[in-house]
């Protein structure tokens, strides 16, 4: 387009000089390379150090398969639960005024500020054999700690804030006008939520779910405390990596770690895609019809 050519040649008064730009960018790149890129590459490097066969054998080992299954189950339960909690909490905070609202907002951020180990300990103190509910649970033969329910609970706790924190500012910024308009037009609460609110928050929601899932699958500290490390039963992939490494089974450890690293890369790719789609929508929206027609006919 004829419009764009001259703009790149002028330096605006608000950009830094070339030297500063290169130094800062270089700095950031060096930092990222050292702390992100090198570790990531080294995981795959070490995993494949003794060849493809040993790598696959490590991944198809029954205990590894079990760990993968447990990680998937945990994520499959924790993420939908937190999706519902997160949307409900964001709806309450962004749309209503009530006593205790500030407290709720603070509580939502609590899992971020607590050490994951402490988070796991909370559940041990609550549901463990010597815990508050321990005797009651033993009576009814319900196992929470050192069993799958405990792992799921601990994971739900640490991944709770992601969806809510993503949605609250988004819903506050969007305002309640559209929802009020829907109500005046005769829509029920559910219709309003489903047809007006949800489409408006879908990208923020997806973003929150992606982050929630990444954390749910990769959580170590809290799960480590409640799981009991029973091989083949209560080990998620992160826990399994630790066990294998402590036994000097480096290929095994790095092979499982490569799964997590792969998950990180997929998460990153999905995040970028979601961000791109969200901005695409906004960009496409901004050009009014008449201007578009003019642009089209100008060629």
């Amino acid at each position, binding site marked *: 387009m004829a419009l764009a050519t001259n703009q790149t040649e002028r330096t605006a008064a608000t950009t830094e000089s070339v030297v500063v730009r290169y130094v800062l960018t270089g700095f950031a790149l060096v930092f990222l390379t050292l702390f992100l890129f090198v570790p990531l590459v080294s995981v795959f490097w070490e995993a494949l150090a003794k060849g493809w066969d040993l790598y696959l054998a490590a991944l198809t080992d029954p205990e590894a398969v079990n760990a993968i299954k447990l990680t998937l189950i945990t994520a499959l339960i924790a993420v939908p639960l937190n999706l519902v909690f997160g949307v409900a909490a964001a709806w309450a905070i962004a749309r209503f005024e009530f006593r205790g609202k500030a407290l709720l907002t603070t509580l939502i951020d609590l899992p971020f500020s607590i050490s994951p180990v402490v988070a796991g300990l909370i559940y041990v103190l609550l549901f463990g054999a010597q815990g508050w509910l321990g005797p009651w649970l033993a009576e009814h033969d319900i196992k929470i700690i050192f069993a799958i329910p405990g792992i799921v609970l601990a994971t739900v706790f640490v991944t709770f804030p992601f969806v809510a924190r993503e949605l609250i500012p988004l819903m506050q910024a969007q305002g309640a*006008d*559209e929802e*009020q*308009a*829907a*109500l*005046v*037009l*005769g*829509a*029920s609460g559910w*219709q309003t939520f489903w*047809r*007006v609110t949800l*489409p*408006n928050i879908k990208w923020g929601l997806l973003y929150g779910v992606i982050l929630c899932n990444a954390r749910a699958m990769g959580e170590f500290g809290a799960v480590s405390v409640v799981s009991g490390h029973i091989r083949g039963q209560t080990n998620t992939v992160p826990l399994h990596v630790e066990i294998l490494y402590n036994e000097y089974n480096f290929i095994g450890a790095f092979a499982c770690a490569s799964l997590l690293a792969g998950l990180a890369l997929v998460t990153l790719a999905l995040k970028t895609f979601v961000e791109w789609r969200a901005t695409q929508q906004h960009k496409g*929206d*901004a*050009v*009014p*019809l008449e201007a*578009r027609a003019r642009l089209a006919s100008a060629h």
Partner: protein
Amino acid sequence: MSIDIRNVRKTFGDFIALENINLDIASGELLALLGPSGCGKTTLLRIIAGLETPDSGQILFHGEDATDRHVSERQVGFVFQHYALFRHMTVFDNVAFGLSVRPRRSRPSKEEIRERVMKLLKLVQLDWLADAYPAQLSGGQRQRIALARSLAVEPRVLLLDEPFGALDAKVRKDLRRWLRRLHDEMHITSVFVTHDQEEALEVSDRVVVMNHGRIEQAGRPDEIYETPATPFVTQFLGDVNLFHGRVDAGQVAIGDYAHPIADASATDGAAKVYVRPHDIELSREPGAALASGTIEHIHAVGPIVRVELKRDDSDAYIDAALTKEQYQSLRLMLGDQVYIRPRKVAVFVDEGAHI
């Protein structure tokens, strides 16, 4: 459908938004709620709609108490100041929304919905935009779609919250006229909120002037303008010059000048006297003048010439408005000394009642 508002009161914490509001709106009337920001007009509108609940008082629709009815059951149409169009739906889906959320039994068929929506879009002259998204429309187009959307459910009352506030002057004028014509065609009881007095006076059948949560005056636009009931209404509508005087035996005296008052039995006392710029007569003859002043500013663009004078006896300014002919015949220039005589005054004795 008529609306009766009885003793409505609304507070937000310590702030009294509405106090003792009583208003009867006739069926088919186009009423304007006019007032400065914070006077409670939008709160009152939202209470009528059901988007807010009053602390006490009643709202009656055609004699039936609707105070406890949920907003979705009131059959009102509401047009928001910032349109509130559903950004993820096309214009067509926006307008069809009210019909598509009806329970299955009362929902019209797809063809019927399509017919009604296209008819409304033609009414607002935007049928060619049916597949566009709100973000692709201009402000004026969005507001017309918002109006079409609210009319789709055949409301008994139409409520508009500063509908033209976010638009530029030319579009505002066009839409104002368009709304009036639409109302004349459809005869729905309509209430709109505005802080623009020109808009209120031009469009509506009746104007309700509000201030600090109370109704100052309700009446036809010409009534409100010619015979304002309180100092606030006088000052709010149009420009006005303020003088201080005394009421004494059927006359109001401002310095040496005396002006007869219509109501000869009025109570005596200190009073505020308001004179509109176009009711001020300028001349070079000194006899029986209210005041004299020196011309400091002349604004001669357009059919009305605005002359700003500084009083000789104080530092106050007086605004006068003359027609082009009057201005030319007087041959006024900057620095001239002129004498002022009012043709018409509004007098309020300091307890507030209009004389």
